[in-house]
């Protein structure tokens, strides 16, 4: 049962014999054998599944299988690869029938799937009925990778938990989704973000970005359905002025249009449309990075469009799913760029924006191995490319976007009635700096988190009782010395379902929590005033919200 040779035809057997390597369902990679085994393993896949030839040189094969080799060498050893030789991958099978089956030269229909387990695993253990053994096997599941029978874009849908891939100096925070995979009749779960390479014929980088994003959203939320590449191309065709197959890539305005066809209300941020100011050293790129950070901190993966500086040459697309830890240098810079209210500059508390702290972002880029942590200025492998557009697939009722939310928050925090200066003066030192952390959250998850983490019983009650829309913008407030431990002293929560025009003011406020006091507004309240003010005794610091992103150390 476990021999591939029994499943294959005679022609393929010949090539296996030539390799002196026999494909098996279970392959253990350890420190002792990984160089040779990985190399033989990749060559066997190439010869049996990708390109049927007996006279291709090893160098050429190595070149074609470079990405797979890299992936296999990156995984922590020892580990076991479980191969499914005949795997139907929905996205590849879809492109096969819409494109590859029409070609003169044969392309195979079946993909393979390699599943990875972070232990030495035998067939007996894998199929064991014993619950403890099953749990052990499931607990060591690292993820899976589809191998498509294509010379370009050999790595198809890949779902691997980043904790097994990333070798980090400092922690990163990423948005993942729990995927269910059925491998030889057994269910396994992995926290991952989809990755795949472009095949350069049906999918270029923008389509790959779309497919990965849509797959993530379909798997995470019931509001969205899963999509195959031909549906993306069909939608593209409706809005494009030329044929879409073979793919030549798409522009970001069309990309956002396609997103809206699949039920999103996307926002498209363009670098050159951001205001420039002669009297500010904050550049358009700084402002675009802030915008990106607000969404990433909100757990909203976004598509990034990179163009060469000067816009000469072709662009690139990738997905951003997380951010790195605070960089000391950038924290210092952010402190120098703190916001101060012009009207109250002599006595207000300056606001330091934590969106300026991270230099690194976690991207899923088909030109690079899965999960890359790269500085914002050099997200792409191509030199001189910078982020020019950000496409944010927002839920249809997230009306308030990040830049407007930031403006409202800034206005409220320095408001003469609701600001920090009014309510935190007894807690903070004179003109003490305050770090702000702005993000969007689902009210259900936020309430649950606050219920479980806030100590003050009355505060818990208020958070649970106050009516909130499905999504809210949250701005947590920290003293500088408490930020590293993410212990907030206050927060304001504003409505994400109203537009900017209604509330460049306190009209968007739902809740304000300052030391020893919480104010709430009910939906009927149209004036900028609180319906209830709850005074709290012993209201200590509380945990910063951590459910939007997973920490990978």
């Amino acid at each position, binding site marked *: 049962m476990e021999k591939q040779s029994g499943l294959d035809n005679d022609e393929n057997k010949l090539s296996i014999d030539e390799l002196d390597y026999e494909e098996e369902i279970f392959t253990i990679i350890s420190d002792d054998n990984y160089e040779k085994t990985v190399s033989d393993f990749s060559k066997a896949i190439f010869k049996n599944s990708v390109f049927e030839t007996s006279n291709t040189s090893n160098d050429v094969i190595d070149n074609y299988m470079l990405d797979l080799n890299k992936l296999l060498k990156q995984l922590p050893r020892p580990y076991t690869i479980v191969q499914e030789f005949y795997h139907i991958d929905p996205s590849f099978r879809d492109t096969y029938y819409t494109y590859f089956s029409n070609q003169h030269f044969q392309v195979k229909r079946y993909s393979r799937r390699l599943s990875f387990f972070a232990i030495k695993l035998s067939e007996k253990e894998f199929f064991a009925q014993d619950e403890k053994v099953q749990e052990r096997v499931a607990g060591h599941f690292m993820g899976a990778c589809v191998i498509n029978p294509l010379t370009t874009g050999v790595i198809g849908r890949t779902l691997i938990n980043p904790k097994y891939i990333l070798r980090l100096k400092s922690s990163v925070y990423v948005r993942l989704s729990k995927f269910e995979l059925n491998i030889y009749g057994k269910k396994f779960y992995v926290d991952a973000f989809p990755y795949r390479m472009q095949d350069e014929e049906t999918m270029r980088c923008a389509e790959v970005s779309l497919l990965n994003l849509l797959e993530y959203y379909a798997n995470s939320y019931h509001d969205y359905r899963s999509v195959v590449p031909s549906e993306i191309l069909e939608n593209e065709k409706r809005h494009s002025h030329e044929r879409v197959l073979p793919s030549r890539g798409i522009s970001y305005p069309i990309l956002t249009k396609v997103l809206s066809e699949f039920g999103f209300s996307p926002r498209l941020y363009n670098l050159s449309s951001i205001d420039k100011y*002669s009297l500010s*050293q904050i550049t358009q790129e700084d402002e675009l990075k802030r915008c990106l950070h607000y969404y990433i901190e909100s757990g909203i993966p976004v598509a990034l469009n990179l163009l060469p500086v000067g816009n000469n040459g072709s662009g690139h697309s990738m997905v951003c799913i997380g951010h790195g830890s605070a960089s000391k240098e950038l924290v210092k810079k952010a402190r*120098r760029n*703190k*916001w*101060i209210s012009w009207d109250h500059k002599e006595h207000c508390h300056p606001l330091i924006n934590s969106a300026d702290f991270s230099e690194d972002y976690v991207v899923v880029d088909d030109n690079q191995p899965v999960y890359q942590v790269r500085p914002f200025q050099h997200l792409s492998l191509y030199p001189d490319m910078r982020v020019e557009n950000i496409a944010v697939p927002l839920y249809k009722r997230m009306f308030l976007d990040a830049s407007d939310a930031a403006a409202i928050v800034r206005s409220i925090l320095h408001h003469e009635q609701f600001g920090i200066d009014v309510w935190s003066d007894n807690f903070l030192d004179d003109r003490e700096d305050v770090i702000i952390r702005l993000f969007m959250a689902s009210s259900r998850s936020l309430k649950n988190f606050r219920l479980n983490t806030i100590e003050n019983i009355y505060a818990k009650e208020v958070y649970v009782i106050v009516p909130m829309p499905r999504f809210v913008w949250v701005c947590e407030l920290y003293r500088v010395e408490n930020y590293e431990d993410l212990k907030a002293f206050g927060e304001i929560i504003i409505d994400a379902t109203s537009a900017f025009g209604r509330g460049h003011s306190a009209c968007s406020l739902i809740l304000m929590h300052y030391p020893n006091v919480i104010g709430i507004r009910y939906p009927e309240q149209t004036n900028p005033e609180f319906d209830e003010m709850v005074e709290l005794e012993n209201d200590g610091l509380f945990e910063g919200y951590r459910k939007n992103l997973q920490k990978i150390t």
Partner: protein
Amino acid sequence: MAEYYISYRELEKLFDQYITETLDNSQLLEHKAEILAALTGDYEQGNWDSANEMISLWENQINKPSQLLLGSRYIRVQQIMLDFLKVSCTSGLIDALIVYISQGSFTGFTVSVGASITVALWELFTTVKKLDDWDFCVYMQASTHFREHSEFTIDELKSWFPRSEHPVCNMHNSTWDCDYLEVTGNCSLVQTKKIEQALKSLYDKGLLMLNKENHKYVFKFKK
């Protein structure tokens, strides 16, 4: 150092204050609209039409203040750049630039003097805001002394930096969070070769010129 969001109206008020603090302010008063246009517009690649439009808006705003037109619009500014604006007004740097442009150095171009002033000032502010810390410090110190020293030697420049006998930096207010001010009251920039490096960098960026006079290197502001 800090970042503010201020309305155009507030910026105008602030600029009026800088004009008041300037000894010979006739040029600033005469070209107030052009200067404000330089501070509030974007004239990438010498966008003269845009400069003319912004000047008209400001002329209108100065004569007939309106909330609708410019008054309630917001602009992002940083304290460090406001400090530079103040220094360049009070030291005569802007004055000198206006005089130079008004004297017809743009002869042959079909560009108005007003738009030329706006674009030239915009270029100055845009170049200065991109300067690194050290370069910015050096340029600010030199600008502060422009009226008395439109040309200066490296020794004169060094003498303007704070030291223990006079531990006050020309360009800092009391809240400045400066990395170079030492506990002793000296400025660490002066102790190192950073000033020389910064001068070279400012020369490379076209903000300063260099001449050799009487066996001494003399730096001048580029016009």
